[in-house]
């Protein structure tokens, strides 16, 4: 029967291995002739107790299985000769002779014989034999139809397929194919014979026919487990190698001061990287805010100094597209700035109440502001009020955030309570702490909230549904001021925070372990921000009027240079 796909190499492979086996049988001490006894057709049994052959130091890998999956991998890589040699040299055939015969018969289109061989391969499961027979006979049926042998196809259907008594809806479909009712291309398209073998492989147990790409799958499993177990994982997947177990050391965490930015005349209270990691904004007691640009080699330079506020600037907020910036004066006004020109586009104020906090809506069309009278207001960009929520929704000193779906507003509504307010359903959930809350930070996926407490602890809450406490971080110092913390690193695996002892603290998020306490500043560190586009860059703002940019340890110079290139890729906002 013609119509075999271009599987010449496969045919040769199969024949070669069979030949190899014949040679083996003749040469080996085994007295069993090829193709005679049923034991040749059985799936190779596992070695009996006294005959255990294992490889590897832990004694869990069976040698026979190991060799077989290696042989299979060699074949799928295209190294047929090597595969055949391995089978011969090890004396461990990839497939039992029965299975080899079976596959050969399928490739040859020798349907009836292949079904007979299938029955001889002893499979415990009757239904599996039936399903496999069904697949084979279906192939026969379609190939007959394709060859315009309609009556023979009908005969196959009636006398061979239907009596199997399985899958009657499929039988129905096959009947309509005979009458060629409508161009049912999805049914009539005849798959290739090698595809059929693949389908049979999936159906039959792995001991009989080893699944495709088994070795590759095992190795990938190991790599992924290594990556997951890596505590300080802060590097890219392609850096993983098979030669040694992957683990990121602390050297993947920014711990060295790369740059000190001195441009403010007074305490720096707030820093934040833009979403694309190309800019950094800082807010200071000196009543200005500065937009810094992250250069190609990772160095920051002043892009614009934003003057205009009459009061110290307490916070900044980047628009979702990073083209605009909001700055908030302490109990004063909010200003909206254009990042490229540095000009102030709009000033927001309200009679009777001064503004204390602000944030952008995820759609970029509205802003949300907190007032000294504890209310929150939603404005269109041109200053038109859309909605306002009164009552104790926020405090004079409070952060303000919105979840990324624009649904929930987060703010501190009482000294020790964070309010999660659903704008649409008006549903209110609360995070109640035993201590006063000083600041909070929302994770990138809006599922977690990091809350800084008066008692020098940072708590991590899961805010999906009912809030649940999931982590605690300690070690830093906080007694008088507002200290801020943030999420950071690849996949936000780390928590960083400022501290009144002038150090930057970094913890491992899931274990809560303190990884680093970085000295350098000479004043309380008020705020930290981890570059969302570069897991190796961290910025800290301090009372000593400077901002420090932290990166990977300079000792690894070569590494540094390689990573500078890496950094520049990130800076340009590439994926």
């Amino acid at each position, binding site marked *: 029967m013609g119509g075999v796909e271009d599987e010449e190499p496969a045919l040769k492979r199969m024949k070669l291995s069979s030949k190899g086996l014949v040679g083996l049988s003749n040469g080996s001490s085994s007295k069993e002739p090829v193709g005679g006894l049923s034991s040749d057709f059985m799936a190779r049994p596992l070695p009996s107790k006294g005959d255990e052959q294992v490889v590897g130091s832990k004694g869990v890998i069976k040698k026979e299985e190991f060799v077989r999956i290696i042989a299979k991998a060699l074949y799928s890589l295209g190294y047929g000769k090597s595969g055949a040699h391995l089978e011969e040299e090890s004396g461990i055939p990839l497939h039992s002779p029965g299975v080899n015969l079976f596959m050969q018969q399928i490739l040859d289109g020798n349907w009836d014989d292949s079904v007979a061989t299938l029955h001889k391969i002893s499979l415990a499961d009757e239904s599996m034999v039936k399903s496999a027979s069904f697949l084979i006979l279906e192939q026969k049926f379609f190939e007959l139809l394709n060859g315009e042998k309609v009556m023979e196809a*009908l005969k196959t*259907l*009636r006398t061979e397929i239907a009596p199997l008594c399985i899958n009657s809806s499929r039988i*129905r479909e096959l*009947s*309509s194919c005979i*009458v060629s*009712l*409508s161009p049912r291309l999805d049914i009539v398209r005849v798959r290739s014979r090698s595809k059929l073998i693949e389908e049979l492989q999936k159906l039959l147990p792995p001991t009989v026919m080893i699944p495709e790409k088994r070795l590759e799958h095992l190795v990938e499993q190991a790599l992924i487990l290594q990556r997951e177990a890596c505590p300080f994982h802060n590097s890219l997947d392609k850096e993983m190698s098979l030669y040694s177990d992957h683990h990121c050391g602390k050297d993947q965490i920014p711990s060295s001061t790369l740059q000190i930015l001195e441009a403010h005349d007074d305490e720096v209270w707030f820093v934040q990287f833009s979403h694309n990691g190309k800019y950094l904004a800082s807010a200071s007691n000196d009543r200005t805010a500065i937009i810094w640009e992250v250069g190609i080699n990772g160095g920051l330079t002043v892009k614009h100094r934003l003057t205009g506020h009459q009061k110290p600037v307490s916070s900044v907020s980047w628009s979702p597209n990073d083209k605009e910036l909001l700055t908030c004066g302490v109990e004063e006004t909010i200003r909206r700035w254009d990042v490229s020109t540095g000009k102030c586009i709009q000033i927001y104020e309200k009679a009777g109440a001064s503004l204390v906090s602000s944030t952008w809506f995820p759609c970029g069309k509205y802003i949300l502001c907190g007032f000294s009278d504890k209310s929150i207001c939603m404005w269109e960009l041109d200053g038109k009020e859309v909605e306002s929520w009164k009552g104790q929704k926020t405090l004079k000193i409070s952060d303000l955030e919105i979840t990324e779906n624009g649904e929930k507003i987060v703010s501190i509504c009482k000294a020790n309570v964070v309010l999660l307010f659903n704008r649409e359903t008006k549903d209110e959930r609360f995070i109640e702490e035993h201590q006063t809350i000083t600041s909070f930070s929302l994770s990138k996926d809006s599922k977690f909230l990091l809350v800084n407490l008066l008692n020098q602890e940072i708590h991590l809450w899961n805010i999906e549904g009912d809030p649940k406490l999931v982590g605690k971080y300690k070690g830093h110092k906080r007694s008088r001021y507002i200290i801020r913390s943030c999420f950071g690193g690849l996949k936000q695996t780390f928590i960083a925070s400022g501290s009144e002892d002038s150090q930057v603290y970094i913890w491992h998020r899931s274990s809560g372990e303190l990884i680093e306490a970085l000295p350098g500043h000479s004043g309380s560190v008020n705020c930290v921000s981890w570059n969302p586009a570069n897991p190796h860059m961290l910025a800290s703002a301090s009372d000593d009027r400077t901002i420090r940019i932290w990166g990977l340890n300079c000792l690894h110079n070569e590494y540094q240079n390689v990573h500078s290139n890496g950094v520049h890729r990130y800076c340009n906002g590439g994926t």
Partner: protein
Amino acid sequence: MDLDPRQYENVAINDNDIHSIVLSYLIHNCYKESVESFITSTGAKQPADYLEDMDKRKRIFHFALEGNALKAIELTEQLAKDILENNKDLQFDLLSLHFVELVCSRKCTEALEFAQTKLGPFGKEPKYMEKLEDFMALLAYKEPEKSPMFHLLSLEYRQQVADSLNRAILAHLNLPRYTAMERLIQQATVVRQCLSQEAGKDGPPPFSLKDFLKS
């Protein structure tokens, strides 16, 4: 709360009406001899022009009931060309009867050819597609009686088709498609349903012919 039988006394029924009802039933089902003796016995009026057509109708009905669809089709077309042309559903059902005959007599090649030439064209319309697939599936089984589609081989199915054919012919002859008796029972059932829906549990119970006949 059932209806009080005494209420029935208030309704007068004309004998002629009763005769009409019985006659309509007998004519519908082509009981020619019964019709003649009934008319003789009761002196009821003989409806015009019915005898000749009744004979033809009877033959057609019986051929269909036996499964001899081709003969039924032939005679129907003799009677009136456009009955089947205007009623594709019926035409399909009759052709499928023939197909079933071929399958039951194990004439697979013929059945396949017949299906491809006569039934296949119907498959262009989606509403026939599923029915067609049902019939085609019969080809897959050496013993169609044991297949999932065995109901297509049953007497009930042939009865259904024969009935439809009968009604179509009656309609063509400008005679009522349904007997007065059928309609009366259907009416009583539907009216009762409406009443019990509206009145809730206070209304009369649904109409049950069996119970009615017993009472």
